[in-house]
């Protein structure tokens, strides 16, 4: 099999042209999934389009009321942005649980999203955060919630020639925080058996006013559990509320048995970790749960 061609365009338009011209072309962000897949023969692209030379696609910036994370931004550099880290500690910690430091110095959240693994660590945190992404393609640009991108394991809703150019999260948070926890057998270097993200807002009294709970690795795609969030809203995260939240989380799980975990363990852990993630998010928000 021939080696794929390599392109490193310096504009979004250049990348779109390359991707649109070749249905077997694949965009390259950090490469930590793509290169492994190419080397093992699981995917056989005819060309690889490196996005990292495109101006404006690397780094975190503010755009009015939004943080904008370029698609080519490696996970570790999210930590370098103090404002972003303070606003979205759960997103930053989720992105910085992927693989090792070596991997995170390359891996990007956009790549994590578009790889469409149900176990992607950063995706539940992004979904809980209400993140959107901007997709560029031959038909122009569109902005969608991040959860609209993965549609099945390994498959996305991106059309031919389209790729994610940036991820956007609300800036200027008021009185909330977020957290992400995952279950893995070791302490590092594993794929999530279950991932849970919580993004909470509180009023001045410590009553929860908004709650988004998202789960990874318990269904073919990331799950936003609205009932779990609803169970927390208008509560002070008392035990009854947390129990109801965890119950809703477990009910929302539709996992599989595989080499990384069983259905029953995944369901159980989703409940346990969601509870813990909610407590951490509340603590970060200065609320005692």
């Amino acid at each position, binding site marked *: 099999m021939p*080696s*794929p061609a390599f392109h490193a365009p310096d504009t979004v338009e250049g990348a779109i042209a390359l991707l649109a011209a070749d249905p077997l072309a694949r965009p390259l962000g950090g*490469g930590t999934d793509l*290169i492994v897949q190419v080397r093992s023969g699981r995917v056989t692209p005819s060309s690889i389009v*490196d996005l990292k030379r495109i101006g404006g696609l690397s780094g975190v910036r503010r755009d009015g009321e939004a943080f904008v994370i370029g698609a080519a931004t490696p996970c570790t550099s999210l930590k370098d942005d103090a404002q972003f880290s303070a606003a979205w500690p759960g997103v930053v910690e989720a992105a910085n649980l992927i693989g*090792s*430091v*070596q991997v995170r110095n*390359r891996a990007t959240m956009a790549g994590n999203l578009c790889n469409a693994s149900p176990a992607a660590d950063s995706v539940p945190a992004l979904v809980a955060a209400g993140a959107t992404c901007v997709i560029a393609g031959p038909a122009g640009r569109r902005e969608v919630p991040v959860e609209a991108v993965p549609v099945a394991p390994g498959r996305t809703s991106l059309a031919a020639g389209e790729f994610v150019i940036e991820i956007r999260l609300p800036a200027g948070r008021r009185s909330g925080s977020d957290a992400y926890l995952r279950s893995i057998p070791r302490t*590092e270097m594993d794929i999530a058996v279950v991932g849970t993200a919580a993004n909470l807002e509180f009023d001045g009294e410590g009553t929860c006013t908004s709650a988004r709970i998202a789960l990874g690795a318990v269904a073919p795609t990331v799950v936003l559990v609205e009932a779990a969030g609803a169970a927390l809203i208008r509560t002070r995260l008392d035990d009854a509320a947390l129990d109801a939240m965890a119950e809703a989380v477990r009910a929302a799980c539709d996992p599989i048995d595989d080499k990384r975990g069983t259905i029953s363990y995944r369901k159980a852990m989703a409940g346990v970790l969601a509870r813990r993630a909610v407590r951490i998010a509340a603590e970060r928000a200065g609320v005692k749960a």
Partner: protein
Amino acid sequence: MNKIHVNCAVNGDATEFLCDPGATLLDVLRDTLGLTGSKEGCGSGDCGACTVVLDGEMVCSCLVLAPEAEGRSVATIEGVAEGSVLHPVQQKFLEHAALQCGFCTPGFIVAAKNLLDRNPDPTETEVRYWLAGNLCRCTGYDKIVRAVLAAAAELRQERTPACTRPRQ
């Protein structure tokens, strides 16, 4: 197949090479440039034996396509010592017997140096998590962690003016 011409800096030296577009940076380092200090233990980013520093950030060179190196700076284990003078991390690995077979050692040293370059006083836990992407099957990590902490201590001493150094 169409080879790609790449210009980059390897251990500070201007370097050019031709590579297959699908070749990894590790392939080029080992097979084209003869720098076999970076090892391939897995080819999938799971062992860290191929760790190099790319523009200041450590990466698995098996997860970098060689053409991506265009215009960039690559630092490998071969460039850690200054001439024949070992870096304190290398010296402490020797003094603490932090290697047995030595196959994972280049990756550990590159990663540990990269840690100490940015954090001169890491805790044991920070060292362990920083190095979690580097597998060692021989040592149980005990002597590796001690060597890195000892190297950090020595580097901190070096940065302290001689007159204020505590007496031994």
